[in-house]
């Protein structure tokens, strides 16, 4: 089972995050799973002419390609040429390389939101014409056709996230190595369901504040960040608070809002990232599957019922009032 990893218009942060894989480290994990890295831009020894020879051999069908991982969006500019990224040493646009290599791969993985949907590289008017592999934002069709299928018959697997969690990448690779990732295991946006079927809200340490709508007004306050600070963890797909980052972290554990980075077009929320837009004082974008009237009724009830402990702590930068001892019955 061999793997080729290419980077295009992204920051390389998904590779840097992948290196944070633990027990075992990422190299042991891949080797132990029988995955051979043909080439990775950050890890492999081969450079320059050696890599060009490898790419030629894959294109000629002499070296079979099982797993093609693309990190970063694919730029189509200027004027549809893709010349904003010519793969170094090859005189060919990355757009051309991806279109040539993807059909040869057993499976194609878009690693990170840039490769999946365009991501941050397509923010602010999208100066470089960045698109994802199989998506342009939320619409099907990017560098590859919307109907693209790899040799396995699977569509592009979108391991979205900015960055991706190392386990999201490694577990997807391990599942593919055992050929145990079926069409039913991907969500409607092509994301592996093992992480995308959770919401960032699940196990968020601010859940008690959320229950009472005890809301932080400034970054650094402990309260829930949904009402004022732009947090969309109640709608964002990802197991970030169930599967911690870098030991024990997550965005909301770091006390800043979830910006829904696993979703297409997260880069253009149409409001400042850290400010919740409101209409007549009501936050826009309530939990996606909750009737608005119910939400409002429950919110006003729970706000009125907020214990002093939760109200005070929500507006503090650290715990001011600890929970008391429960009364014996």
């Amino acid at each position: 089972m061999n793997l080729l990893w290419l980077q295009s218009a992204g920051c390389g942060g998904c590779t840097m995050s992948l290196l944070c894989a633990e027990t075992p480290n990422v190299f042991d994990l891949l080797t132990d799973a029988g995955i051979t890295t043909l080439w990775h831009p950050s890890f492999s020894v081969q450079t320059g002419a050696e890599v060009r020879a490898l790419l030629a051999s894959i294109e000629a069908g002499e070296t079979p390609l099982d797993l093609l991982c693309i990190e970063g969006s694919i730029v189509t500019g200027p004027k549809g040429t893709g010349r904003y990224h010519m793969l170094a040493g090859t005189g060919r646009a990355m757009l051309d390389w991806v279109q040539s290599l993807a059909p040869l791969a057993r499976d194609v993985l878009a690693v990170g939101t840039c490769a999946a949907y365009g991501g941050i590289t397509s923010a602010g008017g999208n100066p470089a014409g960045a698109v994802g592999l199989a998506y342009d934002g939320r619409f099907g069709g990017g560098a590859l056709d919307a109907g693209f299928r790899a040799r396995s018959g699977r569509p592009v697997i979108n391991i979205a996230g900015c960055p991706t969690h190392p386990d999201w990448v490694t577990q997807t690779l391990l599942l593919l190595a055992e050929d145990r990732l079926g069409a039913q295991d991907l969500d409607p946006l092509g994301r592996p369901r093992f992480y995308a079927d959770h919401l960032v809200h699940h196990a968020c340490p601010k859940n008690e504040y959320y229950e009472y709508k005890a809301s932080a007004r400034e970054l650094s306050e402990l309260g829930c960040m949904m009402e004022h600070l732009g947090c969309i963890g109640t709608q964002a797909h990802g197991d970030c608070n169930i599967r911690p980052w870098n030991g024990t972290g997550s965005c909301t554990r770091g006390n800043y809002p979830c910006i829904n980075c696993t979703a297409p077009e997260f880069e253009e929320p149409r409001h400042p990232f850290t400010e919740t837009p409101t209409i007549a004082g009501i936050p826009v974008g309530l939990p996606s599957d909750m009737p608005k009237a119910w939400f409002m009724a429950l919110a006003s009830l729970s706000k009125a019922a907020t214990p002093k402990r939760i109200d005070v702590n929500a507006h503090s930068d650290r715990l001011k009032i600890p929970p008391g001892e429960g009364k014996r019955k």
Partner: protein
Amino acid sequence: MNERQLIVGPFNRVEGDLEIRLEVRDGAVASAQVNAPLFRGFEMMLPGKDPRDALTITPRICGICSVSQSSAAALALADAGGIDMPPQGRIAAALLHGVENMADHVTHFHLFFMPDFARPGYDGRAWHDRALARFTAMEGSAARRATEARAQLLHIAGILGGKWPHTLAIQPGGVTKAPDAGERVRILATLRSFRRFLEDSLFGAPVEAFAALPDVAALESWESGDAGLFQAISADLGLEGTGIGPRRYLSAGAYPLDTGRVSASGVWEGGQITPFETGAITEDLSHAWMLGDTAHPARGLTEPDEDMADPGYSWCKAPRLAGRTVEVGALARQVVDRHPLALALAAEGSVRARIAGRLLEIARLQILLEDLARSLDPSAPFMAPAPWPRSGTGAGLVEAARGTLGHWLRIEEGRIAGYQIVAPTTWNFSPRDVTGAPGPVEAALVGAEVRPGEETPLSVQHIVRSFDPCMACTVH
């Protein structure tokens, strides 16, 4: 006379994509052109946005210097709005940034730079078996141990920053997360564990011993750990004589605390250190695929040349300080901070000097991180919320692992009106300027040995990687 041209690319084990064109004459590089082949246009995305959004968008320029970008943006916004961080906020931000810089240095040495010495081209050298065992790409025992140590070190970023890369924890008014007493001791425990890795594996001795090296003779007699292996390789291959930089070094000073920056700011040339005048920075566009005139970054524009016309050959602009190239990075920081070993290596300006400067910084940074963590006071404020500026200009200068990073922004009517970034590798990997003067790496490659039949010369690889380039930041 024997002449040929070589195109080296994709040039890997650097961050991002890189292409180098070489004119080779009589077995040596006669001239070099460095091309940063990817354009994304971050400076064009930001105008019109709420200033706060810079803190979400700019870290995503780079996945390896993400906290550096975040720190520079926060400082630029703070400068524009007259916002101050409380002292403990500065300590937490410095700790988070220092952990990233440490992780980057360790990644560079073990995964990017050293694997070249395990290549078959060095078969038969006295040190080659050791290099094979320790540094074979993705397999070597040191590479794997370092990867694990780095992942554990970044648990500190998990505590203070939620995640790494791309945290939103650093704000102009402080940090969002106030660590508690338990987290403080957890951070210290993680640092002690990282110290064990450095002392068992990299230095084979206390970090204090390496940090105290007084001169080149002491460096040359260092034998323990992988630092000793590098020294043996360097002595055998003569790395003290290759890849000579401009021997002008710039540092903005790292880690702004309320007592001042931890390391000194300044420019070193010819044994003299003078103040860093940020007003003397210009970005020259003559050989970049960029339209417009040479300008200071506070007034600069980013308009790509869609025709990619000659004489342009890179998306990278050419920053100059008072019209001249400077080198930035760990060596530059240590030189400007007047460490005796770094000062002794300054005039050498070689591959060896750069690697030794980075090892020296690793040793000193470990000690600094432990001091910072010990001085965390969980009872103090870490953030002082302040109103966001509606108008104004600001600059934020920090030291990323690979050198000086600056953000310059202008805010008008509550929106970003201009945003320019000069990244470390923009300095080091710049193309030629209007006078035809090559960038630092272009100049450093001249004279590099090209052996018969070599398509991707080993000497070129050592020189280029010794700068620890980050091409993602370079063009942004």
